[in-house]
């Protein structure tokens, strides 16, 4: 789990809301209805689709998900805020989760985290770098304790054995 991100640079323009669930994405969601006996069970997958499309879960998307799954927006919001991988605020272009739980901590995770905070220009946990490029958070055990320090970038790239020495090189891959 990550700590909730409290600040960030807005990426979503104030312009009219472009629905997430239309065309191919709606078809993908409807195909999932076949796999579960209730529509409610498609909630986590639906929220993942929103986050993949928009980078975070805006209020309007919560309304949309509630409507397609026949739930209330309040219910959906209650679930969204329980799971820490869902962002309820916009985050930097690249979202980095660094494991600092004890097993990684024994092997220098805190030094790695400090190096990443420095190299990204974030300075502090949970904030977005002034150029909007990175948001860095601490995460609890990523299930890869034998390869300290693992990091997860953009909910997609799981990178093992990050150290203060190789951190800059790894970050350079994320413009």
């Amino acid at each position: 789990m990550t700590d909730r991100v409290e600040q960030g640079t807005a990426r979503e323009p104030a312009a009219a809301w472009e629905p997430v669930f239309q065309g191919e994405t709606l078809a993908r969601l409807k195909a999932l209805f076949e796999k579960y006996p209730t529509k409610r069970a498609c909630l986590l997958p639906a929220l993942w689709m929103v986050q993949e499309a928009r980078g975070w879960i805006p209020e309007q998307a919560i309304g949309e998900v509630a409507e397609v799954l026949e739930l209330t927006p309040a219910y959906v919001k209650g679930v969204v805020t329980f799971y820490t991988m869902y962002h309820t605020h916009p985050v930097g272009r690249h979202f980095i989760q660094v494991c600092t739980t004890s097993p990684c901590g024994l092997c220098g995770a805190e030094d790695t985290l400090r190096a990443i905070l420095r190299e990204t220009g974030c300075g502090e946990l949970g904030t977005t770098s002034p150029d909007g490029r990175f948001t860095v958070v601490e995460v609890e055990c990523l299930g890869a304790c034998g390869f300290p320090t693992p990091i997860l970038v953009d909910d997609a790239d799981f990178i093992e054995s990050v150290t203060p020495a190789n951190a800059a090189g790894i970050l350079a891959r994320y413009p």
Partner: protein
Amino acid sequence: MGYPHPSHPKETVVLSQYFGDAGARSYEGWTRRGGYEGLRKALGMAPDAIVEEVKASGLRGRGGAGFPTGLKWSFMPKGDGKPHYLVCNADESEPGTFKDREIMRWTPHALIEGCAIGAFAIGAEVCYIYIRGEFTEPWNVMTAAVAEAYANGALGTNVFGSGKRIEVILHRGAGAYICGEETALMNSIEGRRGNPRIKPPFPAVAGLFALPTTINNVETLAAVPQIMVRGSAWYKGLCLGNPKSTGTKLISVCGHVQRPGNYEITMGTPMKELIYDMCGGMLPGRTLKAVIPGGSSVPIMTAEEAESCVTDYEGVVAAGSMLGSGGMIVMDDTTDMVYQIWRLAKFYAHESCAQCTQCREGTSWTTRILGRILEGQGTQEDLDLLLDLSHNMTGTTICVLSDSCATPIVSGIRKFRGEFEAYLSGARAPVLAGV
């Protein structure tokens, strides 16, 4: 182990035989290595006979509690006419544990096969595999493998021409340690907050979607095809200690050893051999101080306890701890135990689902008190207060996350009291809790 280091001669390589061998990931590669024979054999058996075979093997749950797998399967109702579910727990988030990830990354079909056999044995047509949201690579490997299994008739409406329907559906978590607890996991699949449920009813009566459900860990299910192919007697024979602990166990070793990684041992292997021979021991000039042998939720062992411990369910209990998930955290003499215990408490405080007062308040207050001890602001009464809080946190809540937070605190104060005293007396310079 096979990855990232070659297997050690003292390992018994069953589940980890193909770790590091990318060729084993494909359906074709897996069948060439003898894969899917177990499922084919099981489909020719009566479901009850499969349950009996697994019972006879002595296989016990590898997710933490060590409950006999065949017995758990036998709790499923028969002839009730209701849909049944099998759920595979791939939430692997217990600090120190990283074995299920390797099974999914390298041998996805071993897990699919185990799921299919398990589903058939308990009368389920659908198995959900709940994979933690952060496991992106295992998710991708499993997605490809499931598609291939369907394409080759190993899953679907007529598995290998047997007329049996077995579906495997992957479900992605979204960041919550508590979803590894079986009833929280079921709520999560149902599209709810991951709060554990009060038991009873037990899952075999009313589990996922209120229907009879069995939940098993990845490593547990991955062992099943091997038992089908090689027989329960073979599996039962893999035993060096207590006959109640059979088979092989993947031990994830992390922390201060020369070669961290997954080691597959025969149950009953001396922990000393594991730490010093297989993992290469401590770094030069360092000595062993403590071991947490079963993921962060079990009691901390001193070096002496670890060095005389037999690694199986009973052996670790006799040495004062529990085998748990087999996530072994090794700490050498440079380790600040107070700091590490604070960090573990912080983990539980962060992961508490906050339903129960003792857990919500207890995890947060113990973390704060440990933090102030580290900062040099602790008092003598704080140790008693920590023990008192821990007592109230144990055996009083809906699930055992609360107990898990108390465990390292109680064992830590009992076994490493001097380190706490040093902060309290000022003999040790304060450190700031946190980065």
